[in-house]
């Protein structure tokens, strides 16, 4: 497709769907689908039909609307009224309400701050487009960045724009994306690959899933742009098989894009060709590690290998390979459409742009949010998140999942940036954010994550294979009040060894939850050990008749 044709589709589609049209938008991402939003959509369609042709109502599926715990969610336009916990029986009422006052009992409370404090780049289309319609994406300026870049920028200029944007990898490590792209671009050889890492395995994380389900074309466009910039013709999306909706929409999006010649040979009339294939992962956390992921695509057992060589030099089938996270790719088209300087205007000096987080735990507004970097944890938790339910006291916020740490109250006013989070012993991670209150036990939290690492360790290298199991046993001993101070010293020693000697990031970061809770909540460990007491009342003590020390 040529640029003019693309623009024409966009204009026609926009004209057919003016913002003033009465529209009911139903979230069709996994959270809402799991509470029957598809039934709600059907009921709304039926109700809209009944309303007759004189007052037409458009019913459409859209992406994740953020307040996932309150689904099924429906937005009524014009007016952007957000309804929550909608049932199919409510359909007639909602359809009728598009003509007059909103249905009060279904309007979601407190959605004002929840939305107004967010900054939407990655999620800009979530409430706007039907993820299964390529025209919707095109009408939202989709594929514009791809076709204009192909004709107006050289690959080197494309990378320059990315470097200017300051974007860093959203898969957890925060490696500068522009730098990674230019390394792959410079690597010798004409056969190169692009991989989108959609393995998302952190417990409780669903940022990437929401992007794939809500706006799949955005990923395809980002990957194609990457292919152009680094000189690759083939891309793979490695996505967990546990995400069936994402897989279905990705495959549909690929076939739609191929039909419109936005993927395939000579894209936009240029000499650039690019194809994308979906590969399914079987749900091993370690397969999110880049070298394990590559081994898995090659059909081997998904275990990491030592780096260097890095994939940029020797990746898939031994060829230079660019591997980025879903959210990283989701930023690309918008950056190239609006320019690197525009993107660099969001966030802070060293952490540009926005970050998507999955807010969970003891917080009023659970769900998916996108915020500018540099926002404080307090703003996220108390303004957007609506604070802690039941008037309980905040204790800590966990970021970075099994590789991250627990941040206590004294750092709530700290800006959310890669460096500041690392300074307090946590990491930005891929975007999981779990809030804990006074009823959470920090030893129990550390034990939970260690159990996860122990069972997700691939078993290849000794420190992670044995060390995580030993550390888990020690944490059990502590949580049951059976441990001594020597056990605690041993635990700290093992943390140090496993962190510094493990082969891949899984083992290298597995001790982090223990180390960070020990740093800020050592008294809780000591209460378990010295007084056989769990201050939060979570751990069951196992106190034998006679304690030998």
């Amino acid at each position, binding site marked *: 497709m040529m640029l003019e044709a693309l623009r024409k589709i966009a204009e026609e589609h926009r004209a057919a769907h003016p913002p003033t049209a009465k529209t009911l938008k139903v979230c069709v991402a996994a959270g809402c689908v799991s509470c029957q939003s598809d039934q709600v959509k059907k009921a709304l369609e039926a109700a809209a039909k009944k309303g007759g042709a004189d007052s037409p109502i458009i019913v459409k599926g859209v992406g994740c609307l953020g307040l996932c715990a309150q689904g099924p969610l429906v937005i009524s336009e014009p007016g952007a009224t957000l309804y929550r916990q909608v049932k199919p029986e409510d359909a007639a009422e909602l359809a009728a309400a598009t003509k007059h006052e909103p249905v009060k009992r279904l309007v979601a409370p407190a959605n004002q701050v929840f939305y107004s404090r967010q900054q939407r780049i990655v999620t800009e289309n979530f409430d706007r487009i039907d993820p299964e319609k390529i025209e919707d994406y095109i009408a939202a300026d989709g594929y514009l960045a791809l076709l204009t870049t192909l004709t107006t920028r050289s690959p080197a200029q494309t990378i320059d724009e990315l470097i200017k944007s300051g974007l860093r990898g959203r898969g957890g490590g925060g490696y500068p994306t522009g730098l990674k792209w230019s390394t792959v671009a410079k690597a*010798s050889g004409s056969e190169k690959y692009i991989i989108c890492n959609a393995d998302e395995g952190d417990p409780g994380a669903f940022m990437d899933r929401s992007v794939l389900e809500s706006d799949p074309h955005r990923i395809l466009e980002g990957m194609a742009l990457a292919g152009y910039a680094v000189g690759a013709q083939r891309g793979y999306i490695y996505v967990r098989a546990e995400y069936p909706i994402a897989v279905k929409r990705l495959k549909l999006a690929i076939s739609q894009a191929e039909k419109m010649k936005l993927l395939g040979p000579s894209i936009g009339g240029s000499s650039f060709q690019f194809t994308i294939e979906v590969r399914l992962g079987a749900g091993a956390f370690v397969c999110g590690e880049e070298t394990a992921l590559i081994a898995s695509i090659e059909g081997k057992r998904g275990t990491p*290998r030592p780096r260097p060589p890095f994939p940029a030099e020797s990746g898939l089938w031994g060829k230079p390979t660019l591997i980025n996270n879903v959210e990283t790719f989701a930023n690309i088209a918008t950056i190239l459409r609006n320019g690197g300087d525009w993107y660099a205007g969001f966030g802070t000096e060293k952490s540009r742009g926005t970050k998507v987080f999955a807010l969970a735990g003891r917080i009023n507004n659970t769900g998916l949010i996108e915020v500018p970097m540099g926002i404080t944890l307090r703003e996220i938790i108390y303004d957007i998140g609506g604070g802690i339910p039941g008037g309980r006291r905040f204790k800590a916020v966990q970021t970075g999942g099994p590789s991250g740490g627990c941040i206590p109250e004294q750092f709530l006013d700290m800006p959310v940036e890669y460096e500041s989070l690392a300074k307090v012993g946590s990491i930005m991670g891929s975007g999981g954010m779990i809030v804990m209150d006074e009823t959470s036990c920090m030893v129990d939290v550390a034990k939970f994550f260690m159990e996860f690492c122990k069972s997700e*360790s691939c078993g290849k290298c000794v420190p992670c294979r044995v060390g995580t199991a030993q550390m888990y046993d020690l944490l059990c001993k502590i949580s049951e009040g059976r441990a001594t101070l020597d056990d605690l010293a041993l635990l700290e020693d093992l943390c140090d*060894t496993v962190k510094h000697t493990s082969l891949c990031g899984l083992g290298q970061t597995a001790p982090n939850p223990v180390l960070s809770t020990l740093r800020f909540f050592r008294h809780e460990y000591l209460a378990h050990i010295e007084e056989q007491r769990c201050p939060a009342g979570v751990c069951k003590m196992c106190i034998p008749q006679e304690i030998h020390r």
Partner: protein
Amino acid sequence: MSTPSRVITLTLDDREVGAHTDQTILEVARENGIVIPTLCHLEGLLPIGACRICLVEVVGSNKLLPACATKVTDGMRVITQSERLTRYRRRVVEFLFASGNHICAVCVSNHHCELQDMAVYTGMSHLTEPYRYPKLRVDASHERFVQDDNRCILCQRCVRVCAEIEGAHTWDVMGRGIEARVITDLNQPWGESDTCTSCSKCVQVCPTGALSIKGMAAAEMKKRKHFLAQYWTLKEEES
């Protein structure tokens, strides 16, 4: 795609040495008489960097790197011995003893065991962490060999020698984490394997008594790895 090898210089423990860019830190160290302990690695097999015994410090890198699997670069400064490395190496050996059931006195490989050698090398006289005492399997179904998981350290030498040299790929790894095991074929008893050629290469490269020849008494099993060197000399002569 591989770029031609170049001659470079680097320092190993304050000694300046010359090397080719296609060599690993371990190869260069051995050429220069510097001892770096190894366990999973065996010359002649592809390195996998799994046991972490050979970790060294490289100035400018925030990560410790496996000498067996890391190529040298120009100007690299490598530290092969330090208090910290000794501590970590010892801990790795402890992990291996804690995670298996290594009763040396009754083992066929007693005195000829690379794991024992590593315990001596790192000065590991006793464990500072609890033994795990796992319940593990012994497979004596093969007519000539025995596999004893109690003594396996998961170095994957058997897996590699069988796939890379013998070309049979009888062995592989099953399970994850602490549950991982080496298995024959699709976890059939070794004696029922369709692919095993009974060549005994796996037994000979196994660093411990995990794989042994039937009928051996304690301390009788001596491994003969010379075939690897012979194999590669032959290959070189052929080409």
